[in-house]
């Protein structure tokens, strides 16, 4: 097992290198220049600008720039933001907890909906409950998050004025009041992300359970005189969890990506909004670092999916 993990992590190194090469090249080829603003600023003379560019190494050929970025990365130096001059790792660490909290809560909400509803619907296929759950799930994942997000803001913030629609990190309160404010402002982004994901997973859980329900070993379990609840939990749901866990783990990085839109709508100061503002400002070190973090997440969750799969299914062995 340990051997397998080490080997998988070794394989991850070339993938990360490949990702960084592509990212760096694309960013270098992209139009725009972090010094655009300085160019239009009459207070900065052109020779000062040229000097600045040279000192930052921006005029070097692309492969030299890549190598210097890579060697710095290997030493653990993520560089400074072109715009704010703050070290990149500090920026990311500032933003990451908010994103993780919002996404984490929304994924828990999604699972809390998808698992019971999907299982219950699948054990009573084509019942009224199943039909309603199916319809709602279909509506849920057909509506994009930017639309439901705006709808919720219109309803709960503007019409009813119950919830704030701008997410603030600096809440001037302590103790319970701080938590209360945090929960209040998290409700809408968490609901939007969680309901969307929950709708998709409900359908997936339902079909995974339906696949298992008709298998022979479920009849065997029933022939043993087990109560129906035990048959469902131990012999149906347990087996159906194998594909579900894999899907959930594999989708996690995509959820981070999808959360960018939601973060933008609710002004959640997370890693997604950091990426968007960095792209708009041509802030190469920040873009590189954030996308690198995303790439790392993809690799991590892929590995996690494989490990969980083997843990859930004894037929899989690690070699």
């Amino acid at each position, binding site marked *: 097992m340990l051997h397998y993990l080490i080997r998988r992590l070794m394989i991850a190194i070339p993938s990360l290198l490949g990702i960084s090469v592509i990212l760096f090249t694309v960013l270098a080829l992209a139009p725009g220049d972090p010094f655009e603003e300085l160019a239009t600023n009459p207070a900065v003379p052109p020779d000062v600008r040229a000097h600045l560019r040279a000192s930052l190494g921006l005029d070097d050929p692309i492969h030299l720039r890549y190598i210097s970025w890579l060697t710095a990365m290997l030493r653990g130096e993520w560089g400074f933001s072109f715009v704010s001059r703050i070290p990149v790792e500090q920026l990311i660490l500032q933003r990451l907890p908010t994103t993780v909290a919002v996404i984490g809560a929304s994924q828990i909400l999604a699972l809390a909906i998808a698992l019971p509803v999907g299982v219950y619907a699948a054990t009573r296929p084509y019942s009224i409950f199943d039909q309603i759950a199916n319809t709602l799930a279909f509506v849920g994942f057909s509506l994009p998050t930017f639309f439901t997000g705006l709808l919720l803001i219109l309803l709960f913030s503007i019409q009813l004025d119950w919830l704030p629609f701008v997410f603030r990190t600096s809440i001037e309160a302590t103790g319970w009041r701080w938590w209360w404010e945090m929960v209040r402002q998290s409700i809408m982004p968490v609901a939007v992300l969680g309901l969307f994901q929950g709708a998709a997973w409900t359908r997936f859980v339902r079909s995974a359970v339906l696949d298992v329900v008709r298998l*022979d070993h479920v*009849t*065997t379990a029933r*022939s043993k005189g087990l*109560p129906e609840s035990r048959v469902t939990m131990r*012999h149906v749901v347990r087996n159906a969890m*194998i594909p579900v866990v894999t899907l959930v783990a594999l989708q996690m990085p995509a959820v981070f990506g999808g959360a960018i839109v939601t973060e933008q709508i609710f002004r959640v100061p997370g890693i997604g909004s950091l990426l968007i503002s960095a792209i708009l400002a041509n802030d190469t070190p920040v873009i590189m670092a954030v996308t690198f973090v995303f790439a790392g997440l993809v690799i991590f969750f892929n590995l996690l999916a494989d490990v969980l799969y083997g843990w859930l*299914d*004894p037929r899989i062995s690690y070699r």
Partner: protein
Amino acid sequence: MSASTTDPLLSIRDLRVHFATDDGMVRAVDGVSIDVGRGETVCVVGESGCGKTVTAMTVLKLIAMPPGRIAGGQILWQGRDLVPLKSDAMRSIRAKEIAIVFQEPMTSLNPVYTVGEQIAEVVRQQEKLGRRAAMDRAIEMLRLVHIPNAQRRAHDYPHQFSGGMRQRVMIAMALSCNPKLLIADEPTTALDVTIQAQILDLLAEMKERLGMAVMLITHAMGVVAEVAQRVVVMYAGKVVEEAPVRELFANPRHPYTQGLIRSIPRIDLAATHHHRLEAIPGTVPSLLNPPVGCRFAARCRYVTDACRAAEPPLREVAPGHKMACIL
């Protein structure tokens, strides 16, 4: 208490099982009566789709309801009718009194639990034993069905066993609560021929040791000849003939039974020239719209107009020998 010794253990009486399909009502089992006495081995024979598996599954109410439905009849277990029984009461019968072994050992075990856990699960459920004691019983059962290194193998998963070994595990599981009746639904069909013989031997040995009755569902007349005491021949959802095994092979009365016996490959005849294995022409009629009259009429070589006019009732032609044919 003389009644209880002469009463059959299981008495299926005029059982009717219907399935609702998109095309209409399928009468999978249409008035079947089968008795199984204490310690007796009864074989139920017939082609695929004749309703024998549905009959077996219905005894334990393991058919999917809906679309399935018990449309009539009784299933008397030691005199008590199982048909109106609530699911709680039914559960206490399963595995404890009537156990079942299925056709497909490859898919009948849950792949995510060890075989020991799966056997122990029945014991814990039905005998209320603790985890430890149940596992000990599981290992003991595995030993009983001749699985080598039972102690160690109990912690292996189903995929680590061959088909024949898995069927042994299924039999160990079915017998772990000492049932009075074992229903074996084509237990050897999915196995290699040499393994088939081993499983049949095992069933016979278990029967001798534990003294339970066996209801063996099969389509292989060779198997019937080897293990049965009494034989029930089914055709298109009905019983067409029933007799003690010697009587049936010596004196088959129904044309369908005669056809089944003629279609057994015979090694002595195969060696002689110009001998072709005889098959029954045609196929089983649709149970959606069964023909009026005898259901075998379309395939019968002795068919008369009377056969097509009315359904022949099951009648006794010799002591213990019943058949449903006008001839």
